[in-house]
């Protein structure tokens, strides 16, 4: 059966701890959707919770805050992977509990 756990760990290690243009604390904060100031925090929260609401202005605001395109790229990737990770982990926890009760 398919098992993405190792591949997911490799992805997460790479984006959070590997070499990058954005700082490691900023990448971690984006992954956690927590602790980044406006306007970057606004962009990250939209990516995590309402990705279809991201606009050109959100990206322009991140640029205006001094981030390079590479830094924005990395921060957005971290935000997306972080949210998908939280959702997946919550679902696996619920599945394990359901399987125990079955």
């Amino acid at each position, binding site marked *: *059966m398919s098992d993405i756990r190792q*591949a997911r760990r490799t992805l997460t290690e*790479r*984006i959070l701890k590997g070499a990058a243009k954005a700082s490691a604390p900023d990448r971690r904060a984006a992954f956690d959707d927590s602790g980044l100031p406006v306007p970057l925090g606004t962009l990250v929260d939209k*990516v995590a919770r309402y*990705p279809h609401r991201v606009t050109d202005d959100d990206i322009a605001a991140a640029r205006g805050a001094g981030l390079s395109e590479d830094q924005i790229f990395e921060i957005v990737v971290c935000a997306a992977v972080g949210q*998908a990770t*939280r*959702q997946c982990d919550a*679902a696996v926890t619920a599945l394990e509990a359901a399987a125990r009760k079955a």
Partner: protein
Amino acid sequence: MRLQILDSGHGIGTKALFALIRTVSRQPVLDVVKLVKYRSDFYGGPMSAVTQEAMRGPSTWSIGDRELIAAFVAKTNQCEFCTKTHAAVAQAAYHRDGKIVPDLSSDSDVADLSEPLRATLRMLGKLTREHAVNVDDMRAVLAAGASRQQIEDALAVCFSFNVISRLADAFGFFVPGPEAFKAGAKYLLARGYR
């Protein structure tokens, strides 16, 4: 594409590859390809390993089923690019297997599905919309006949497309015409996500 680096910041070798793709397929290079090829050691390489395992690794869900799950997750996230991409692959995969192609156009339950797959989609829809599911949601899927392993396999697909559809929307992927999606589906069905 909202970031110029993702549109045109690739190295010479990758740009040559894009020229080859345009020549062979007679279609524009899809923005998702541009994303995974940009600094692929950071995102594209490791993410492709996740997606390949979820979409083409061993599973009792067929490839068509997994592509349908991908399209459903993307649709729930309101991501037009990913919905059209994976609906096209699902259609091609089901057609290849001689099966009826489920209709994703309805906002309610997807017709023409087995009960385990229908219940799995219902749970994934809630997970994607509300970011959480509970024990009762999972018990309902198990009661519908999906195995624990099938649910885990579906969650792997859901993970991949909860990442990719977020990036497609955030980076503003261009949505091309149906011929480009048809060409993309042909490639993904033949070659997978490596």
